[in-house]
């Protein structure tokens, strides 16, 4: 577990506090990401899950300083090895980018400049950060490609992006990201565009990075399955806010937020008996403009009641699942995979735990299986809910 | 009008060899003139440039003044006297003449040159030389042209005898005309295009590129034989550059980059030229006028009253303004221009005049008379389309015509086409042109070219693009009058002149056209150019220009 591999008492690799990103639109500031906090330890894989538009990519881009829309507002702090990333001058950021923090993107089809060879582009990154000759850089490139499992790496390096299959391109992308041995790799949906069989290969590769390169990974995805098999800790985003965070195992076993629970429940099972109908969540996530003042999930939540509605949104609280975990101060509540406490802690932004009515542990498929009992879990059948934006 | 800056040089057999000799004359022209073949080219630029290159048996005098009217001997020893009632002319060729390739000019060259006129299809072969015996056959079968019986040569006596089918009062002029240039007999019987055949004049063409320019250099075999007919040249070379537009040419001459421009000074530069470069300007009369032929066979101008109304109404003063004012143009209301043989000032259509009582000069439009005639003609309200060339001055004149027609009550419109297209278009009767706007200039001073060519029955050729009688006018009595005038030229030139003037007035009574304006050429020379001699027929003599 990460807690064992990370040296205790050292600062985490990445410490994000209260990150907010808003974009101006028609004279208003639209908060896309609101008060997101998390930490990421050395050699840790953190999963960032959420539905489309929940702000995952924006969070990642904000960390990299890659958002350059005019008028954008980024507040909060993000300490990378003690260096503040938010507001860091571009020049300095540039030195970090690619060298200390690398990023790979969802669509390997479009992430390479189409008019240069793969090798040229990897060389370029190497030479941008290290004083190497062309030859040396190419040697490193070929070596990296080989390590990524690319067959015939020397020839592949001389090919153009469009000449490679999706899987190969994504490997090349990872090779490029790793070319300067970054301590942090941000992977924004690296497998979404790939086929399942190829996806499995890439996820294996990402998992192995930790041991071979000692990199930490921030893995962005919307696939709970991917998170379950890859990540140490998980952060669930819902409409730009953290809904729940905690060690993956704990979070999957005992979701603390109704959204997490419903999300997990609505995934059709591959094994076991087939549910008669899927426990779907009614409605759709709100757009950032129409985000409720209180809990963002309230309009779709079966457990919604008056305390959920007024502002401010419920803070992250430790879910009372682990009796050993001492309740922490609400204001400083945070996810900490490498916290001094030896016990992993799970947090949810929900009023239920505080009210003493935490969710029951996650139902297994077998429990969901028999016919209309699905409704007994509290999820109403699919319908056009009132709270949904038109 | 003609004001040569220096007096003509005294006759001398030797080429001029004084301080003014030598140097290169730099000329500018907007476009080239196509073929250099002197028997084919009908472009005045080429004629102007080739005047010091080729010679005919006779020539128009190369000096200015009132005595410079009749033709004089050139390659011929003397101007021949008509024999046989004007059917036979005997000419003796001067000895020791050389072409620029060194060949001696002999009588066979002369005969061959005339045959060649037909073989190459010279534009004037028909109108000018068809009276030579055998010419009709030559016109019909040019390839086998012999002119048998038409031209007899005797190399021993160096005589050439021309036999005509009928007397031709202008035969001598036609021997002096550019197309009658004498070329070596060996000249190919087709248009020589961009190469100039050898000539006899003081210069020869050494380079010609229609896109860029032309160079004339001295003809090494030239010895001056008659200063009045073909004087030796001053400059060593004449360099012509094509491509500048007139505005650019003016600027370039003002800046001393060129010595002479072929085109007229553009209107908006006249003021500047007249004030700052007055000393470098040559203004001289041309046998050129602008007029509007009225088609007398289709409405509304099949009505005499309508034609007269328009003649009364037109503001010829405005026409003068369009050409740059009174210094450059004169109102014209007769069909013979000033300077043409037979010209007698007469204006039938002006305020206070009538065909019966013409005034000597145009005064002002007479709108009242015009309106009255219009009422009588009953043609008001009809549609009239003016077919005019696109080019600037024509467009302005056409607009003025349109305004006048409109004020007379016609529904007038102007249709413009480029001049090359418009000129044949308005001639063809198939196009039913009511009113055309065009200009006419004489190849050489003669009354017939203005009156007979433009208004005789014979020169109306229906369905043909070549029918210079654009009015489709045909009055046998006037035709007879003109024939009489023409015939009289051989016997009594003064009577001939009077009769031409009479014919002019008779024609204007019928008003088959609206004469508008006669213009003068405004030519700009550079500061360093001297000795501009302007002749009636050949304009500025390039060979006589001197440069510092």
């Amino acid at each position: 577990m990460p807690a064992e591999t990370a040296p205790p008492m050292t600062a985490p690799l990445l410490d994000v506090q209260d990150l907010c990103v808003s974009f101006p639109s028609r004279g208003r500031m639209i908060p896309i990401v609101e008060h997101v906090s998390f930490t990421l330890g050395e050699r840790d894989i953190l999963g960032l899950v959420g539905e489309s538009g929940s702000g995952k990519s924006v969070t990642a881009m904000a960390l990299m300083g890659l958002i350059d829309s005019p008028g954008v507002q980024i507040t909060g702090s993000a300490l990378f090895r003690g260096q503040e990333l938010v507001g860091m001058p571009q020049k300095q950021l540039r030195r970090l980018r690619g060298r200390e923090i690398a990023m790979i993107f969802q669509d390997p089809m479009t992430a390479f400049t189409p008019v240069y060879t793969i090798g040229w582009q990897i060389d370029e990154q190497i030479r941008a950060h290290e004083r190497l000759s062309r030859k040396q850089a190419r040697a490193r490139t070929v070596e990296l490609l080989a390590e990524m499992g690319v067959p015939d790496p020397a020839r592949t390096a001389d090919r153009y992006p469009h000449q490679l299959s999706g899987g190969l391109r994504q490997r090349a992308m990872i090779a490029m990201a790793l070319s300067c041995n970054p301590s942090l790799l941000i992977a924004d949906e690296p497998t979404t565009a790939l086929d399942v069989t190829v996806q499995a290969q890439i996820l294996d590769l990402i998992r192995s990075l930790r041991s071979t390169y000692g990199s930490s990974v921030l893995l962005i995805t919307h696939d709970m399955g991917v998170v379950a098999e890859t990540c140490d800790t998980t952060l669930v985003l819902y409409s730009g806010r953290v809904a729940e965070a905690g060690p993956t195992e704990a979070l999957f076993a005992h979701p603390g937020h109704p959204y997490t629970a419903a999300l997990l429940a609505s995934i059709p099972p591959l094994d076991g008996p087939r549910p008669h109908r899927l426990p779907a969540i009614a409605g759709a996530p709100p757009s950032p403009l129409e985000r409720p003042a209180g809990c963002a999930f309230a309009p779709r939540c079966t457990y919604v009641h008056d305390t959920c509605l007024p502002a401010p949104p419920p803070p992250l609280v430790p879910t009372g699942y682990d009796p050993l975990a001492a309740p922490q101060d609400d204001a400083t509540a945070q996810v900490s995979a490498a916290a001094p406490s030896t016990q992993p802690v799970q947090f949810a932004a929900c009023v239920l735990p505080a009210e003493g009515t935490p969710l029951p542990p996650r139902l297994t498929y077998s429990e969901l299986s028999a016919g209309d009992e699905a409704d007994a879990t509290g999820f109403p059948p699919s319908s056009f809910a009132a709270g949904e934006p038109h | 009008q003609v004001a040569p800056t220096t007096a003509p040089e005294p006759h001398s057999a030797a080429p001029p060899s004084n301080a003014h000799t030598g140097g290169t004359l730099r000329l500018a022209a907007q476009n080239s003139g196509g073929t250099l073949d002197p028997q084919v080219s009908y472009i005045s630029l080429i004629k102007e440039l080739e005047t010091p290159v080729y010679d005919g048996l006779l020539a128009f005098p190369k000096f200015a003044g009132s005595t410079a009217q009749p033709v004089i001997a050139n390659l011929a020893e003397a101007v021949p006297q008509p024999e046989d009632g004007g059917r036979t002319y005997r000419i003796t060729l001067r000895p020791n003449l050389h072409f620029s390739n060194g060949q001696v000019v002999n009588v066979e060259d002369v005969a061959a040159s005339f045959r060649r006129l037909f073989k190459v299809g010279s534009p004037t072969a028909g109108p000018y030389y068809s009276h030579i015996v055998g010419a009709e056959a030559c016109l019909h079968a040019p390839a086998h042209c012999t002119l048998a019986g038409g031209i007899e040569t005797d190399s021993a006596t160096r005589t050439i005898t021309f036999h005509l089918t009928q007397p031709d009062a202008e035969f001598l002029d036609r021997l002096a005309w550019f197309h009658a240039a004498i070329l070596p007999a060996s000249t190919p019987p087709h248009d020589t295009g961009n190469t100039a055949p050898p000539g006899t004049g003081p210069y020869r063409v050494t380079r010609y590129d229609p896109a860029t320019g032309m160079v004339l250099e001295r003809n090494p075999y030239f010895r001056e034989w008659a200063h009045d007919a073909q004087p030796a040249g001053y400059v060593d070379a004449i360099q012509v550059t094509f491509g500048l537009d007139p505005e650019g040419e003016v600027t370039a001459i003002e800046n001393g980059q060129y010595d002479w421009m072929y085109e007229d000074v553009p209107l908006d530069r006249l003021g500047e030229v007249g004030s700052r470069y007055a000393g470098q300007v040559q203004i001289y009369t041309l046998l050129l006028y602008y007029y509007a032929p009225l088609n007398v066979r289709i409405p509304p101008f099949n009505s005499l009253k309508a034609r007269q109304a328009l003649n009364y109404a037109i503001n010829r003063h405005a026409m003068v303004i369009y050409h740059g004012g009174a210094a450059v143009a004169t109102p014209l209301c007769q069909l013979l221009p000033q300077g043409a043989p037979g010209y007698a000032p007469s204006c039938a259509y002006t305020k206070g005049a009538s065909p019966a009582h013409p005034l000597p000069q145009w005064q002002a439009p007479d709108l009242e008379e015009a309106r009255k005639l219009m009422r009588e003609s009953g043609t008001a309200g009809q549609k009239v389309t003016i077919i005019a060339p696109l080019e600037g001055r024509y467009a302005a004149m056409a607009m003025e015509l349109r305004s006048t027609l409109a004020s007379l009550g016609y529904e007038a419109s102007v249709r413009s086409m480029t001049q090359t297209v418009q000129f044949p278009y308005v001639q063809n009767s198939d196009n039913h042109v009511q009113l055309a706007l065009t200009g006419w200039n004489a190849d050489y001073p003669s009354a017939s070219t203005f009156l007979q060519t433009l208004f005789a029955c014979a020169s109306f050729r229906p369905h043909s693009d070549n029918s210079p009688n654009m009015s489709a006018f045909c009055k046998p009595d006037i035709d007879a009058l003109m024939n009489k005038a023409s015939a009289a030229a051989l016997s009594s030139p003064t009577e001939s002149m009077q009769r031409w003037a009479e014919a002019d007035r008779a024609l204007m009574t019928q008003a088959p056209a609206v004469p508008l304006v006669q213009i003068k050429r405004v030519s700009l020379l550079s500061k360093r150019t001297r000795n501009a001699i302007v002749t009636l027929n050949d304009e500025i003599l390039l060979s006589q220009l001197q440069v510092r």
Partner: protein
Amino acid sequence: MEVRDVRKTYHLPRGQTLKAVDGISLSVMPGEVLGLVGESGCGKSTLGRCLLRLTDVSSGQILFEGQDITHLSERALRPLRQQMQMVFQDSYASLNPRRRIGDLLAEPLKVHPGPDGRKRSRATIAARLHELMDLVSLPAAALDRYAHEFSGGQRQRINIARALALSPRLVVADEPVSALDVSVQAQIVNLFADLQARLGLTYVFVAHDLAVVRQISTRVAVMYLGAVVELGETDAVLHRPAHPYSAALTAAVPRPVVGAVRAAPLGGDIPSPVARPAGCRFHTRCPFVQGRCRTEEPALRRIGPSHSVACHFPLAEG
């Protein structure tokens, strides 16, 4: 519906050909849901389009209720369109952005005569529109709006409503939920199931997500490089796959359960459909490849009462 040895070849520049569908025969029984799975580019959509004659097939036969529709003209096909419809993957692209939803839904009702053989009146169309909106749980107000004003799930409902407007018996759904978020995907999958139960529809349900296919279909056809490699009852194919590719596919799906053990993934990438391997089309990636596989192409053969596989050495027997 039945297809017999259907092939579709695309002609690429430089004289290359791409066999998108390479000899597929299968039949769809009334009332069943046939799931079609396979990786991207294996020809699922092409097959779906061929079924509805939205692309012309290169060879083979398509029978709809016993009638050969392979070569019917567009005009002759029009009455049959009422019987078979399609729902597309991209809910946005399949709705004309410049027309109101009401117009879009009314379009099929306008061009096809009603059950009485006459043109439908405005009133019947309006009534039918409201019925349809009810059916897919959308408010009637949505009719006046444009596609871009809806969320992905809602748009997919509109697509479904349009497909159902003419009360078809067969619906081909081409990855209708792939572009949706899980939370919404479940709603749509439920909707499909509900509609089938209510209206007795027959589906051909294309998806690349095995879990979704399993949730909804009665039989599954697994496609690889333009051909069906395995066909059978859903649970049989997913839990006792007979083709190594089906096995790899099921194994590769990430499960939302921590600690789930997954078999080592398949190596290599899918070969380009332009240069399909000779012999068994899967031999380049097959962990159990043998000599025969490289030369001889296996035919789809029965291994159980309703289970067929195209493999020389199937992993399981019916």
